[in-house]
């Protein structure tokens, strides 16, 4: 019989890249949620016109 998976869990496992049980999800939430909350503070910055740092794709005719 095919096991029906919770779509939220499937999405989380797909992002993390490994299977997760309930205990592992709790441990992950404990560290990932504060990080997500910290990163939300970046949403207030005005980044209009700024590109991320980029390296040239080519240095000369051959490399």
């Amino acid at each position, binding site marked *: 019989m095919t096991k029906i998976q919770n779509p939220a869990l499937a999405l989380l496992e797909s992002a*993390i*890249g490994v299977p997760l049980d309930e205990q592992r999800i709790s441990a*992950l939430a404990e560290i*990932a949620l504060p*990080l997500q909350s910290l990163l939300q*503070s*970046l*949403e207030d910055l005005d*980044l209009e016109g700024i590109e991320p740092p980029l390296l040239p794709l080519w240095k000369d005719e051959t490399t």
Partner: protein
Amino acid sequence: MTTIHQDIAYSTIDEISAKLASKALSPVEVTESLLQRIEAINPKLNAFITVTAELALEEASRAEKDIMSGNIKGPLHGIPIVHKDIYYTKGIRTTISSKIFENHIPNTNATAVTKLSEAGTILLGKVQTHEFAAGAMTNSPHFGPCRNPWDISRTPGGSSGGSGSAVAAGLAFMGTGTDTGGSIRIPAAACGIVGIKPTYGRVSRNGIFPLSWSLDHGGPLTRTVKDAALCLEAMAGYDSLDPTTSTLPVPAYSTMLREDLKGVRIGIPTTYYFDNNSPEVFAAVHKAIAVMKQLGAEIIDVDIPLLDTVMAISRGICSGEVSAIHDKWYRECPEMYGPDVLAMIESGRLVTAVQYLQSQRARQLLQEQFAEALHEADVLVTPTLPITAPAIDNTAVGMRLAELTMPTNVTGLPSLALPCGFDQSGLPISLQLIGKPFAEGEVLGIGHAYEQSAGWHLSRPSL
């Protein structure tokens, strides 16, 4: 430990170099002396992962022949050093203090290893790091905690804690370090020695296991500013194997050391850096600023408002890059990581591409604000750590250790940590000098003037 061993062990690189050049000492004597000291003291500190005694004696013997025949390569010829076990060393085990790379023997050298070897240094061994350099404590679950020579119940800081511990204990004249959020400056500060994180692109990252490509910097830990200048000169320079290295010529930093600070404008950031210091750190750094004023510096306030987002910017960049670097091993063998590094990798896998790129864009705003502050001032002075070295098992304060060092990993600016006192428990306190891009010479020069006037570098731990 005999007095002669102590004298050699705590000499500076330039003092030993002069004795080697005048043949008052031989590289073999110096190396044998340090190897005996390592054997006696390392069991207390657990700084070394691998001691390369046989190789060290071979290299010392070769250096002795060269020096005796007048073929002196420079001030580092015959000087015994250690490498953080994240710098690849050809034919010598390089573990990154990890289980995954426990038996890893590289077939090439890191560029900085080659440069230091060509300068004539002698390799005593490979020293501890926090697992994968991903933390500020140097307490790898695989190799055991490294200890601070000033109090062995305390962390030496990290991630370059092995270099910090070994150099402070007189087991080597210099240790290499890497710095992604403070990992050269944190152990330098916790162990009462000098550490310089140069400008991003000044020292090649080739052959150094990455933690976070755009935040990683290589540099030296030494006991004096002059020794740091000599070692950075040898390590720095363009490298075609690292596309982020600068083509700017490397100045002779050791000729740029100053005796006073006349004409120097020192900026004191009005926010962030002094907000959450322990009272003893706050007082010691302000006392150091007063000494700099007596040496002729003008002290001004500078404002860097965006510092309140620096932790978000740095975590957004670092988490994404760490998790990408470890993607393969995380999926194949997550059980081989220690719990704190595993948590860092896992939480980073949930940082989105949008968050990563916004962090990279935001770092440019912070760079602009630092550039404005450094337009008004020649250097900025701050504490290196907000507290002194915590107990080894107090991992909860680990992230606090990087609070004041992290901003210049984000901005890539050169930053020097040097001692400025001790707390009531006898633990070192450190100040940080932050300079303009590629102004390592200026930063070292100012640091030297303060160091020589204050004299904190002459204190030694009892071991």
